[in-house]
């Protein structure tokens, strides 16, 4: 539905998702050398900040997988992050914090929750899907808030970060930083492969025209459920890292505002490109950090900035890059 003659450029003209290799490579290279550059400055702070950025990038990737490649706009993704975090927190409260237990627990818990709620949520579509995922997110939130033995609304302090076979590998900030980076890269590569695979193509097909896919013989529901569970587990993975980074878990990690922020990050970066989620998470958090340092009323700047990005740039921040490079190459072609 377009008024007047706006060419539909949102429909990518390529046969497969644009396989941009350069931008992700640059992103990861920058993240990899950051600690070296940071060494001279207040290293600990910068590392912490970027660990946070990368963790949210992982969570945003899970959202991007669903929204950008399966048209499942989930408004409850924070619940999975929270569940992953609580798995770490609750185990810690019982003095179990080795990776071999904590990580599978986080993945399993978030995966199971995704499976159970996905069965219900995927009956609906569009805005109904948005709202029903919100509903389950809120239920998770309220449940966590009333977990009195684990701090309820006040949250739960984690006494020791996750260990690997008893070795406290994550205690050194630099080590933790590189672990998070490695996870981010792994998740990105995984999502990339997934999207390009037969499975990913079915998801994208269902996004385009679910009825057609069904009559072609695909049981769309199953594919979407699988994607939902995968995304939920990636969310749980992010939660696992977040709990370790903040050494604290709280129901606030599951609030609907947080789910909303994840969506905004993905959209800000540019829907449909996986690295867009990373760019979006980084832009959102760094802008927030920077603007909040300037003025208490930083949202009066941040809000209009978002509006500008949507109104004038198609395809988010990554879209700016694409548009710029297209303009440059056109220039070059003309000579």
């Amino acid at each position, binding site marked *: 539905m377009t008024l*007047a*003659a706006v*060419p*539909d*450029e949102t429909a990518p003209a390529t046969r497969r998702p644009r396989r941009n290799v350069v931008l992700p490579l640059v992103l990861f290279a920058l993240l990899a050398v950051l600690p070296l550059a940071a060494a001279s400055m207040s290293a600990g702070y910068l590392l912490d900040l970027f660990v946070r950025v990368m963790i949210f990038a992982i969570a945003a990737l899970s959202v991007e997988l669903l929204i950008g490649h399966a048209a499942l706009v989930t408004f409850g993704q924070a619940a999975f992050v929270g569940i992953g975090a609580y798995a770490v927190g609750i185990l810690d409260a019982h003095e179990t914090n080795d990776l071999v237990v904590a990580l599978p627990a986080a993945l399993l818990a978030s995966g199971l929750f995704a499976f159970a709620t996905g069965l219900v949520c995927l009956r609906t579509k569009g805005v109904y899907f948005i709202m029903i995922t919100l509903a389950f997110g809120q239920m998770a939130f309220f449940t966590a808030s009333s977990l009195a033995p684990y701090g309820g609304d006040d949250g739960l302090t984690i006494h020791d970060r996750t260990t690997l076979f008893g070795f406290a590998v994550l205690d050194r900030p630099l080590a933790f930083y590189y672990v998070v980076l490695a996870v981010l890269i792994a998740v990105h590569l995984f999502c990339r492969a997934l999207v390009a695979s037969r499975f990913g193509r079915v998801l994208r097909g269902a996004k385009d025209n679910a009825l057609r896919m069904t009559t072609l013989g695909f049981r769309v529901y199953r594919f979407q459920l699988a994607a939902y569970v995968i995304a939920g587990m990636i969310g749980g993975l992010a939660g696992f890292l977040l709990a370790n980074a903040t050494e604290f878990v709280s129901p606030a990690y599951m609030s609907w505002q947080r789910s909303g922020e994840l969506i905004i990050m993905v959209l800000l970066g540019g829907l449909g490109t996986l690295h867009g989620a990373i760019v979006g998470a980084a832009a959102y958090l760094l802008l927030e950090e920077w603007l909040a340092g300037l003025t208490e009323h930083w949202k009066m700047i941040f809000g209009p900035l978002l509006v500008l990005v949507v109104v004038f740039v198609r395809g988010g921040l990554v879209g700016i890059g694409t548009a710029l490079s297209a303009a440059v190459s056109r220039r070059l072609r003309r000579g």
Partner: protein
Amino acid sequence: MLTVENLEAGYGETPVLFDVGFRVAAGEVVTLLGRNGMGKTTTIRALMGLVRPTGGSVALDGVPVTGLPPYRIAQLGLGLVPEGRQVFPTLTVRENLVATAAARFGDRWTLDRVYDFFPRLAERRGHLGSQLSGGEQQMLAIGRALMTNPRLLILDEATEGLAPLIRAEIWRGLSRLKRDGQAILLVDKHLDAMTRLADRHVVLEKGHVVWTGTSAALAADQTVRQRWLQV
């Protein structure tokens, strides 16, 4: 009445029309012919303002309308039956007909007359647009355009999906309209019916006008029929 000159248009970066020019005089029936994908629909969209022309001009009674928004052009008397029906799915049949009805150029077409013309629509008046069969939707799209009482009626594949009986009915209806002085611009695939009905024909090939002429000339000119229309 309608003058199209050197019209150029396209989608995004892809040009589709390069040099399209033709006229429709008052009371005249003109067709656009050409194979699939040659730019017939694009021509219609461009002159309705639904695609912004990149060059050339469209004028109604000498008044240039190029670049005007679609609703202004429609208000000047163009009534469109679009390709693919595009009825309003969430409106009932009756609502589809009255929502955009207008009587700027006479009020020959009223709800009752449209119902008379398509009794099937009267039977289904309370149904939603999306609940109609393909053919019923097509009737609705035609009725909807008539309800704007246009000076120039534009039909883009208006008989698509209609049963032969109804199709024949439509052709008869169109000749009645013609007799009443209604100007019509027509895209369709039923060449014989069109030759009988229309005064002149415009043949499009890859966005260029390659032939124009009367029905008699078309019937006579074997090369055109073979080369551009594959008949």
